[in-house]
């Protein structure tokens, strides 16, 4: 492999990189596998050794142990960390090989890795630790993913399509469960496979129905993993994803119902009715529990203005408590978590600081990403581990029946739903919805905790269906989406215009509905908004912000983002190159004695003299040009913002702002003190008593102002003063005193290929990386 590198030249470099990556991957897998097995081996050795030293102690004096192995104490955390490390390294590895990750969805790759690791472990030790226990799965791995989904759930499309989603989730899952369960029972009775050792006709109707209910639920983890990569339009995404979230209630009820029936042995009509009632309780109860914790979280966040550091902790803890409390009462934990996240978000975001907001976002993304990776890997490992009973009739008929049930269900339901929808679902939409019904780890875990005698064959069948849906459907859905030319997600940023006009239309439609006398969608929404504004916001949002209308909040958010981007792309470029020479805390002198030089390094001080202003002007102009140049050669890995065609408007906006600043600085620089520069930096040219928007970085949305000048004068560390006339918008609160400029930039920027940002109350979801 390496010998071929030389003659190929440039293309060879790319290919060798890929090969290197593959090699790395293989080595990592082997390494981790062997280390794990070694540890297991050493742990067992140590166990056996434990017995012996005790007898020796009495006889001889042991010399002081300079080096020893004490694995037992740390074995559990060690192994957990090793698994997580493996998962993360795998993820890293996949993204180094772009060709692979374009064709195969990540979930498939991860399952394959899991299979590999499981195989290695099995060979090494002949017995694999049962890693995907249901407790680990349901208590540790699933909640982060669901919380991530719930917190960033795009509320507006979700609520607009709630009827459709509920139909699919409830009726669709019921249909699937009974269809698959019933027909599998029929198949078992009919099929007489002489070669299999299992007598299929032994399987009663109730176990079959139980099996059907487990296998019929669309899995949110798998759907998220696959749909995330195909960037499908918002409607379809929210339909399939919403269905996968809400069908948890149905699954929980059906599962417990059939389990109870299996124990008691007989079913009566009363039981069926009780089942229905139980469904309502499970679903509504879950939502109520979640909403309760959400309100608590929102209320708590109202008082956290002095302890900003632990704000994210409250969000996570309350959500987890919501999940656990729901699980205690056998309510739907998933629905509770979703309700909690969705309810608390608008209020919490109005209360917490910008940094906490970023922290929450990144922690959720990180945890859910790691969880997802671990789930798929463990799925692979568990596949290798378990005993499988291969019965081709059962397996193939299960897969076929699942597909058929899904298609019939979707088509039938859409026919009914379209009678009530304003925007009908087309055939293409139906196909994608049907095809996107992936099964995943939840089905596996539910199967894992079965107490039936047919557990093994059920588990095998479940795994087969999961593999089929994830591999076959997961891999082919992307080309199919391209082939069918399904509408893709529109990546444009939200503009202030859109926001204004959307609100305008809201009011317009409310008015029209009033004229028609028809209490539609907008009417109730309006009522809810008014109630929200009048009562709820006052209680749950701290201080002034409770009265801030959403449009203003949105506007401030936009302005702040703009300011940050402007500094980073415009101002940062110049400073970064000279940064090492400029700022270190010790070198800052309050006064510049040396004459202003051409080096930008000298300029990093708050007091301005005439010569300095000239330099400032110079820098602003060059930065302006530099901004344009840099932004045109955009690359997702080097810069933060992506000005595609839609971003052109943003670009123009920024450019105008820079020019205004430049103009203003020139105008006011000569005789006023440096005070003027900061406070008037964002002034419309030529106007007196002009509006200044002062933005406080301490909050994502607040119009509170920051005592900018105090900070700069007292704080010797805060040196970026120039493009700082543009960055006045985003000086951090006092906590950042003493930090140097680069750290300031870094900590305020959102690193990484963050394609889109989350929005407030109503809107678009972020694209998770």
């Amino acid at each position, binding site marked *: 492999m390496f010998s071929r590198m030389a003659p190929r030249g440039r293309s060879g470099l790319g290919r060798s990189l890929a090969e290197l990556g593959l090699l790395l991957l293989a080595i990592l897998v082997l390494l981790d596998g062997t280390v794990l097995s070694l540890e297991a081996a050493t742990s067992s050795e140590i166990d056996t050794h434990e017995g012996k030293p005790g007898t020796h102690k009495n006889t001889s004096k042991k010399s002081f142990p300079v080096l020893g192995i004490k694995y037992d104490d740390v074995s559990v955390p060690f192994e957990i960390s090793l698994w997580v490390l493996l998962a993360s390294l795998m993820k890293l590895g996949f993204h180094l090989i772009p060709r692979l990750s374009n064709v195969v969805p990540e979930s498939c790759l991860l399952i394959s890795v899991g299979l590999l690791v499981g195989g290695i472990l099995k060979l090494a030790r002949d017995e694999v630790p049962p890693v995907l226990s249901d407790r680990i799965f349901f208590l540790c791995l699933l909640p982060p993913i669901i919380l991530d989904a719930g917190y960033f759930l795009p509320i507006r499309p979700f609520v607009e399509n709630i009827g459709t989603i509920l139909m699919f989730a409830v009726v669709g899952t019921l249909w699937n469960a009974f269809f698959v369960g019933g027909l599998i029972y029929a198949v078992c009775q009919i099929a007489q496979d002489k070669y299999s050792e299992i007598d299929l006709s032994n399987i009663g109707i109730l176990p079959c129905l139980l099996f059907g209910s487990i296998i019929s639920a669309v899995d949110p983890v798998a759907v998220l993993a696959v749909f995330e990569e195909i960037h499908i339009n918002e409607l379809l995404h929210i339909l399939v994803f919403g269905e996968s979230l809400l069908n948890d209630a149905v699954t929980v009820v059906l599962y417990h119902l059939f389990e109870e029936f299996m124990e008691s042995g007989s079913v009566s009509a009363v039981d069926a009715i009780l089942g229905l009632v139980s469904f309502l309780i499970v679903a509504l109860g879950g939502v109520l529990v979640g909403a309760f914790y959400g309100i608590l979280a929102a209320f708590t966040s109202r008082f956290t203005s002095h302890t900003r550091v632990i704000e994210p902790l409250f969000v996570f803890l309350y959500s987890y408590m919501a999940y656990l409390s729901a699980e205690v009462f056998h309510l739907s934990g998933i629905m509770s978590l979703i309700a909690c996240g969705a309810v608390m978000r608008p209020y919490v975001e109005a209360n917490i600081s910008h940094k906490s907001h970023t922290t929450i976002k990144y922690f959720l993304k990180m945890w859910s990403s790691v969880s997802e990776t671990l789930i798929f890997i463990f799925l692979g490992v568990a596949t290798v581990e378990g005993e499988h009973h291969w019965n081709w009739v059962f397996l193939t008929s299960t897969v076929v029946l699942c597909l058929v049930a899904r298609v019939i269900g979707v088509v039938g339901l859409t026919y009914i739903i379209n009678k009530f929808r304003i*925007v009908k679902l087309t055939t293409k939409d139906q196909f994608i919805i049907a095809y996107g019904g992936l099964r995943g780890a939840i089905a596996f875990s539910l199967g894992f905790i079965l107490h039936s005698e047919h557990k093994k064959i059920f588990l095998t069948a479940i795994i087969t269906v999961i593999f089929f849906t994830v591999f076959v459907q997961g891999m082919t859905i992307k080309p199919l989406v391209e082939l069918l030319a399904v509408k893709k997600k529109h990546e444009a940023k939200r503009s202030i*215009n859109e926001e204004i006009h959307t609100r*305008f239309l809201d009011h317009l439609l409310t008015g029209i509905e009033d004229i028609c006398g*028809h209490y539609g969608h907008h009417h109730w929404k309006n009522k809810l908004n008014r109630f929200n504004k009048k009562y709820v916001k006052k209680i749950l949002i701290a201080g002034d912000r409770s009265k801030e209308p959403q449009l203003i909040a949105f506007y401030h958010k936009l302005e702040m983002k703009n300011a940050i981007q402007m500094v980073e792309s415009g101002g940062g470029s110049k400073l970064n190159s000279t940064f090492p020479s400029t700022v270190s805390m010790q070198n800052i002198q309050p006064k510049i004695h040396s004459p202003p030089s051409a080096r930008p390094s000298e300029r990093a001080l708050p007091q301005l003299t005439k010569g300095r202003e000239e330099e400032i002007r110079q820098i602003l102009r060059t930065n302006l040009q530099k901004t344009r140049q840099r932004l045109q050669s955009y690359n997702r890995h080097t810069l933060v913002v992506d000005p595609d065609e839609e971003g052109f408007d943003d670009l123009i906006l920024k450019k105008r702002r820079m020019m205004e600043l430049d103009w203003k600085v020139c105008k006011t620089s000569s005789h006023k003190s440096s005070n003027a520069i900061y406070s008037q930096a964002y002034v419309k040219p030529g106007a007196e008593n002009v509006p200044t928007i002062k933005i406080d970085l301490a909050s994502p949305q607040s119009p509170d102002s920051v005592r900018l000048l105090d900070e700069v004068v007292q704080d010797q560390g805060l040196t970026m003063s120039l493009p700082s006339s543009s960055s006045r918008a985003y000086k951090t609160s006092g906590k950042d005193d003493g930090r140097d400029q680069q750290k300031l930039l870094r900590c305020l920027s959102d690193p990484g290929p963050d394609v889109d940002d989350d929005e407030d109350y109503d809107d678009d979801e972020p694209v998770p990386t």
Partner: protein
Amino acid sequence: MGSSRSSLRRVPDGQQLLQETGCEPERWFCLGLRSEDLEAELSENPIGDRIVGAFFQPGQETVDFPSFVRVLAHFRPTEKNRTRDGVQPEPANSRNRKLKFAFQLYDQDRDGKISRTELLQVLREMLGLQVTEEQLQSIAERAIQEADLDRDDAICFDKFRKSLEKVDIDHKMSVRFLE
């Protein structure tokens, strides 16, 4: 359609209205116009005046039934699969017409553009007393800057339409009742 023919005769220009708006106007006689409630609701609506004003043709003091129907026809749900021959005029409830209607609500002086003052007025109505004048100015400023391509300090219909392209207008600007 047989029975409705007789009722169509009752409505002046009934046949023509049917052509134009695509719906049977006599059904709309039974719209529940409860005037007291309506007044209360509309007065709470920030742009209530504009909406009411949209029904009146410029210069007219009263609304007659055809104009009423014509305005409301904009809010019928769009039918996606209708085949149109080129001869028929664009139906009232097409996406374009809906947007045009909304645009006209902004653009009171009918000059085809939303000027800064018009935008400010709308913002003032929508946000009212909750914000300061300066904040309104800044928002209007930013909105114009974002949307204004030809530097005339106003938003033209094309840009208006473009900024709403992500929004599902067919869904948003339809009242199901009016099918």
